[in-house]
């Protein structure tokens, strides 16, 4: 009896030890998985930084940041035409922000008004039908939008322009921006929807109690209360527009023009990265390395937008808790 109890005690303690080792190993695996996301960020920062530093050893960083001329060639012979490539990123940034601004002028009114209608006016049934329909727009691959922009919208805008005597490039910023705006509508609408839904009902009731109509309550009470959430959403959408690639590769141009004219062809940071890296490239020419410098620039710009947006949204959440 005594020995049996002791044997079983030894047995369970051994089982417990095995169990403990397994759990320790499992925990190690879990921690390892959780660090993958961190490692990815570190990998992004280091690979961009490292390749960019190699680029800046060939092209001064001031030329890159403040140069007004972008024509990325590296000469094979010294007497070649255009032998000295110029790597001024300003026209690319200007093009990127021009297209993003057009996209936001399309997306913000449509997205915000849709969100207001869906969250404040629509009946439950209408909302259950309309919201998923709107979200189809977000589920369409961007390459389809690019195709649509390049083959349908751009010729349409060009023909409309020639109808009224305007000379519009078939790779106009307007076509790419407008289609990008359509893509971003559900993004803005769903983030604004969340912000509007987070406004406490007591504010709504107070507005009605003071005799305001529903529209007045929305405009003067609910929208101001939801504004931080909405502007956070708009910043996130902006970051998305800046980083959008397929639409601009297909519908925007490749010539770097420094212009604010939405009817002209402009190019963007993302479109240039794609153009620089497709095809056969040597890995250490300034031309290839400039893609990483552009990538670093893009990463930093979107990071600023994202951090600002997340901070605004976070601060706003605490307000009503």
């Amino acid at each position: 009896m005594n020995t049996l109890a002791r044997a079983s005690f030894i047995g369970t303690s051994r089982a417990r030890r095995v169990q403990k080792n397994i759990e320790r190993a499992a925990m190690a695996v879990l921690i390892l998985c959780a660090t993958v996301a961190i490692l990815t960020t570190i990998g992004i920062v280091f690979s961009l930084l490292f390749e960019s530093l190699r680029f800046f050893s060939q092209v001064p960083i001031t030329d890159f940041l403040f140069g007004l001329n972008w024509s990325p060639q590296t000469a094979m012979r010294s007497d070649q035409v255009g032998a000295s490539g110029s790597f001024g990123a300003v026209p690319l940034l200007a093009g990127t922000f021009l297209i993003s601004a057009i996209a936001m002028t399309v997306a913000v009114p449509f997205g915000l008004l849709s969100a207001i209608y869906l969250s404040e006016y629509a009946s439950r049934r209408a909302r259950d039908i309309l919201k998923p329909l709107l979200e189809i727009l977000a589920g369409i691959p961007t390459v389809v939008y690019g195709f649509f922009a390049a083959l349908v919208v751009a010729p349409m805008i060009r023909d409309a322009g020639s109808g009224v005597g305007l000379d519009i490039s078939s790779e106009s910023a307007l076509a790419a921006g407008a289609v990008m705006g359509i893509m971003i509508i559900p993004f803005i609408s769903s983030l604004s929807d969340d912000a509007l839904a987070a406004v406490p009902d007591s504010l709504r009731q107070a507005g009605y109690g003071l005799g305001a109509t529903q529209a007045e309550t929305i405009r003067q009470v609910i929208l101001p209360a939801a504004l931080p959430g909405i502007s956070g959403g708009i910043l996130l959408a902006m970051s998305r527009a800046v980083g959008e690639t397929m639409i601009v590769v297909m519908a925007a141009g490749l010539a770097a023009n420094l212009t604010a004219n939405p009817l002209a062809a402009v190019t963007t940071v993302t479109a240039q990265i794609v153009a620089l890296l497709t095809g056969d490239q040597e890995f250490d020419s300034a031309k290839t390395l400039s893609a990483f410098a552009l990538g670093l620039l893009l990463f930093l710009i979107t990071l600023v937008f994202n951090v600002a947006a997340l901070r605004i949204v976070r601060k706003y959440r605490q307000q009503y808790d």
Partner: protein
Amino acid sequence: MTDTANRAYGNSEKIAASLAARHRSEKWFRGIGFAAIVAALGFLAFMILSIGSTGYKAFQQTYVQLEINFDADVIDPEGTRDPAVLSRANYQGLVRKALRDMFPDVKSRRDRRSLNDTVSSVGQFELMDMVLADPSLIGTTRTVWLTASDDFDMAMKGSIPLDVPQDERRISDKQISWLDKLNSEGRLESRFNSRFFTSGDSREPEQAGILAALVGTGFSLLVCFAFAFPVGVLSAVYLEMFAPRNRISDIIEININNLAAVPSIVFGLLGLAMLLGVFGMPRSSPLVGGMVLALMTLPTIIVAARASLKAVPPSLRDAALGLGASEMQAVFHHVVPLGAAREC
């Protein structure tokens, strides 16, 4: 007395008028909101319709009917019926001869060459496959349908404008007259383009298909899923269930939210510099593509998995712990299965 009454009356009239205006603006505001949704859905419908109405033509392919003389002297002069011999024969010549016989008045070299362009270069292989499948065809004359070339196919589909000068379009006036003749004799037919689903890319549009691209997409997705799903779910489990609430887990949280908003092209650059540059993995392989996609989708999976884990009531975990389960057992035997069930 009457004065104040009058003033009150005037006020209420003013209020009534302003009320009407306020109700009008209410209606307007509501209408604008509805119009915004309708417009957004209108864009969607327009996009789907315009792509659908342009794209559906790719599912059709024009075929040309020819009288092919499977000449034994050309295909198998020795009469061996050896597949190696049969597959080396000049089937292109058979196609050309059939076309020549059909249009005997086409004489000049240039015209003949453009006549030969009626049939796709895949036509000779279609004939070869027929002969290999049924050698008894040799020596007979049969009516055969062959794939038309891309230019003729586009002309048949109405995608080549015929009212512009000859040198501004892909097919010449002569070719159009041959096309019309073939068409009036019932020798042109539009069929379902099954080759579109069974072949890879090609320089000849009529022979191109999406199979290779589809397989590549499938492989990339497979790699992506095999990597991102377990890593994403396990890191969600760690962050939601085990991670101590401190600065480090705060940083991880912010990091994941930021990573979710990093542009996809930056992930591409990471793949180029790290996976191809540092680790020397093979270029253009679905392995590299899938891994980069996995890193890109990881934050989304983590956020979604955390949300569904958070939705499992903590009482379940407490109950399991109370019954003597270890932390690990409580999480993996009770919380994770329930969270997974919620997700599906």
